[in-house]
């Protein structure tokens, strides 16, 4: 369905791009009020211990020290740090400070002082005695008989009825069965049964977590924070500090990247309580090492996958059992492991589907939301097994995917079975251009020239691999976004919304949607977002929801305002609304005899007759989560002597519905792809035997730089999603899921060796090659 749009579908310049390129002070650290106090945290040096005593008297007497917070002097409220819909599907297992520490990097006490140096010195003067407990450092040990119980405090509970067994270190369980995977495996012409595993990784936003809180003149507290979820911050801080929501105002200015890690409420309680108790602004920014250790990570997941097929290549069964390591707290534990199943299992039609997901506690860093959200982890299993199964059948893996993937008009029982903490929502696929993605991507990478591994010789061998992907767009019947629009006398509009731009460009994209629906230009839309005092509610930026969900709220609101404009214009032109048409910020009689500009209309409504403010507010919830689809292709070169893998070329063909802003959609894809490549090849957490991360620095945790980057080619394959604003779905998350399987499959195509565990460092690849 082709439609002509003036603003949507055009790569208008991101509205904040020049301000950012000119270095304007727009980030949290740039806005800290003068005279702010500084926070330093004493972090646990032990993986698992009880605090038997804590003596802060020396620290408190040190120069500049204003306040020391610890478990003895703060409210004890069980909560989750996960910024999710309320009540959350994550367990309430966290306290602001506790008398127990559960991982190296857990909070012990916070010092608030005049300078960071004074705060750091005082941290060193806090005396803590610990009763060191046995630690669980391997997720396989978590639910063994006699394993130490990590959450043994009585207050811990789940706020919604979901399986939760803290006495067994089980943070979450989920599952579903359609038909019988065992029967399918027994009856299959070909079948495979393997275990795959993905590793720890961090989001590494260039700006670490940072926030300040400031007492306002009206006695309230303003929190300015680098967050993806300002409204969840307000609710959760009110909950943990036991103060009314109305006491708080939360503002998100520009933020230096999020990728999921800022869907977590990690600093705001300390700065807010600090500001309340001292009456001064309080500022806290994580160091890079703290970001690695004490922020959130990608849950490592081990996936046993079974697949069955007939000899002509029809999938008859798929069974997935996931063991997720949620670390010391259950933040996003249930939903990430659930999404490992719910986002990848519907990709291939199958009469028999089995899924279990278990998330266990360990005394290791805490998992959280990370772009891709479980699907990144399970895509390694599904897409590598599909490749292997096709090979076993003697089929081209590309043809195998084309034969089995879900299509427009089809549904999957998985949609209904797996929701987020409750049953899912049934949906049939609207738009799906996966077939075109696969074909166009294959052509671009040169799929035909990939050859067979057994014919490749020599030290350096090249190979090509692919992966097919799907994600979702918003969490249906859970998430809500709202927007309000008011008109100004020059014909411009204030667009106020709770939606949260992390640098993704959502302010621009949503501004484009408003401009299109109002038949005006983007420069007439003044976007202001993410301020809990000023803008309507929005759940925030996660679950690939902003364009699809908040975008619909914006469009609905703009359409209501458009009607109001017509009504005023009709009275000005003394005619019926039906005689009028809007174009280019003008309202004209269809017969061409008279017209008024938006500025005339707004001015008239303010000053002339029947005065009123033209403006409205709309909310939106979704009843579907239409998946974007994508096909990724990687060409790699493997040095068989050293195991080093180099990505030579990468192609990502993506069906995100209508790309509201094609350049920004490409940018999302390229950024996600490179993050995925770097996750696949170099990023990893190395722990010692006591659970201490050994490489908490960008010196030793390698993310890709410009020189490491292969050429990345994005192909946008347009489709039209009827339920989305101007046909849009989502684009932000899906792109990170491709590199791990596409690269693993390319390594196989180069060397004939299959990899089942990430990352694919030179060492792991070399070992796999040595073992053959």
């Amino acid at each position, binding site marked *: 369905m082709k439609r002509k749009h003036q603003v949507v579908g055009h790569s208008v310049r991101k509205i904040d791009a020049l301000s*950012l*390129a000119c270095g304007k002070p727009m980030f949290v650290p740039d806005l800290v009020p003068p005279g702010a106090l500084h926070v330093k945290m004493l972090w646990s040096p032990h993986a698992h211990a009880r605090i038997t005593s804590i003596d802060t008297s020396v620290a408190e007497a040190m120069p500049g020290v204003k306040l020391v917070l610890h478990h003895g002097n703060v409210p004890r409220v069980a909560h989750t740090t996960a910024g999710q819909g309320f009540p959350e599907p994550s367990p309430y297992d966290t306290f602001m400070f506790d008398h127990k520490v559960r991982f190296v990097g857990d909070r012990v006490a916070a010092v608030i002082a005049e300078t960071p140096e004074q705060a750091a010195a005082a941290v060193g003067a806090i005396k803590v005695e610990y009763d060191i407990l046995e630690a669980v450092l391997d997720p396989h040990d978590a639910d063994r008989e006699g394993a130490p119980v990590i959450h043994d405090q009585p207050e811990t509970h789940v706020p919604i009825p979901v399986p939760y067994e803290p006495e067994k270190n089980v943070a979450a369980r989920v599952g579903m069965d359609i038909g019988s995977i065992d029967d399918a495996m027994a009856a299959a012409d070909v079948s495979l049964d393997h275990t795959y595993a993905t590793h720890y990784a961090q989001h590494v936003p260039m700006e670490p977590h940072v926030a300040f809180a400031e007492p306002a003149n009206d006695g309230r507290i303003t929190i300015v924070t680098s967050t993806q979820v300002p409204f969840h911050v307000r609710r959760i801080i009110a909950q943990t500090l036991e103060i009314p929501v109305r006491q708080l105002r939360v503002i998100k200015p520009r933020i230096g990247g999020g990728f999921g890690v800022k869907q977590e409420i990690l600093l705001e309680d300390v700065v807010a309580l600090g500001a309340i108790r001292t009456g001064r602004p309080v500022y806290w920014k994580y160091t890079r090492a703290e970001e690695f250790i004490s922020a959130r990570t990608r849950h490592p997941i081990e996936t046993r996958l079974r697949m069955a097929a007939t000899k002509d290549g029809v999938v008859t069964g798929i069974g997935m059992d996931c063991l997720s390591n949620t670390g010391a707290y259950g933040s996003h534990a249930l939903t990430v492991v659930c999404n490992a199943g719910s986002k990848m299992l519907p990709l291939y039609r199958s009469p028999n589907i089995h899924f279990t997901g278990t998330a266990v506690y360990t005394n290791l860093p805490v998992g959280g939301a990370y772009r891709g959200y479980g699907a990144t982890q399970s895509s390694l299993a599904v897409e590598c097994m599909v490749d292997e199964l096709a090979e076993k059948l003697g089929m081209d893996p590309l043809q195998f995917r084309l034969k089995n993937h879900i299509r427009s008009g089809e549904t999957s029982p998985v949609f209904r079975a797996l929701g987020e903490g409750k049953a899912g929502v049934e949906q049939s696929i609207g738009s799906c251009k996966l077939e075109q993605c696969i074909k166009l991507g294959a052509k671009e990478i040169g799929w035909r020239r990939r050859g067979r591994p057994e014919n490749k010789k020599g030290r350096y061998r090249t190979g090509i691999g692919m992966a097919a992907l799907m994600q979702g767009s918003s969490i249906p019947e859970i998430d809500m976004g709202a927007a309000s629009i008011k008109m100004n006398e020059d014909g411009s509009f204030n667009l106020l919304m709770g939606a949260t731009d992390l640098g993704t460009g959502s302010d621009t994209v949503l501004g484009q949607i408003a401009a299109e629906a109002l038949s005006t230009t983007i420069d007439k839309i003044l976007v202001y977002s993410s301020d809990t005092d000023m803008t309507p509610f929005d759940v925030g930026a996660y679950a690939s929801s902003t364009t699809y969900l908040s975008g619909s709220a914006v469009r609905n609101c703009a359409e209501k305002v458009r009607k109001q404009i017509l009504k005023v214009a009709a009275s000005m032109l003394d005619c019926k609304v039906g005689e009028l048409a809007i174009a280019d910020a003008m309202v004209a009689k269809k017969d061409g005899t008279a017209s008024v500009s938006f500025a005339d209309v707004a001015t008239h409504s303010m000053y002339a007759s029947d005065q009123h403010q033209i403006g409205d507010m709309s909310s939106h919830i979704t009843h579907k989560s239409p998946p974007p689809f994508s096909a990724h292709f990687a060409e790699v070169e493997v040095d068989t002597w050293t195991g080093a893998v180099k990505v030579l070329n990468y192609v990502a063909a993506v069906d995100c519905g209508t790309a509201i802003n094609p350049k920004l959609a490409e940018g999302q894809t*390229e*950024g996600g792809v*490179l993050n995925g490549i770097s996750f696949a090849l170099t990023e990893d957490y190395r722990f010692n035997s006591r659970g201490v991360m050994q490489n908490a620095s960008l*010196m030793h945790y390698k*993310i890709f730089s410009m020189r490491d980057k292969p050429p*990345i080619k994005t192909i946008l394959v347009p489709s039209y999603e009827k339920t989305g604003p101007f046909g849009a779905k989502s684009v932000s998350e899906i792109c990170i899921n491709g590199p791990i399987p596409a690269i693993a499959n390319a390594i196989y195509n180069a060397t004939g060796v299959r990899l089942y565990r990430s990352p694919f460092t030179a060492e792991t690849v070399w070992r796999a090659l040595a073992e053959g």
Partner: protein
Amino acid sequence: MNRTISCTINGTERTLEVEPSEKLSSLMRRLGLKSVKVGCNEGCCGTCTVLVDGRTVYSCLAYAASVDGRNVRTVEHLGSIDRPNPIQQALADEGAVQCGFCIPAMVLSAEELLEKNPRPTADEMRKHLDGNLCRCTGYEKIESALMKLAGKEEDV
């Protein structure tokens, strides 16, 4: 013991008091030059880049006192929203600015290169910007914006 230094910052001669342990990044931010970001404070990310006598320096590693007698520039001096420098304009137009946290430093590194070598190859460009990490863009649009700019200068 504080030290007095004189230097030129963004075109203005300044005499400043600095502590011997103060880092250049801290001095810059203290002076209100908030384009100088501190992404890691350990010399790894490049977001704190400034130009000292035309050469890029990680200001989180350099001591403030080390710029005594030198000329320091940040993006605040390179362009404004009304009159952006061509690099700022190119990055904005190409969709290369996502969160923007890395971008001021990227602009300065590109400026250093293009001042010396207005027509770099893509490889020279990539090598030169290697010390500036970006987690949002995958560098693709940054590279294409700058290469287009380099190409344009070739035409002139």
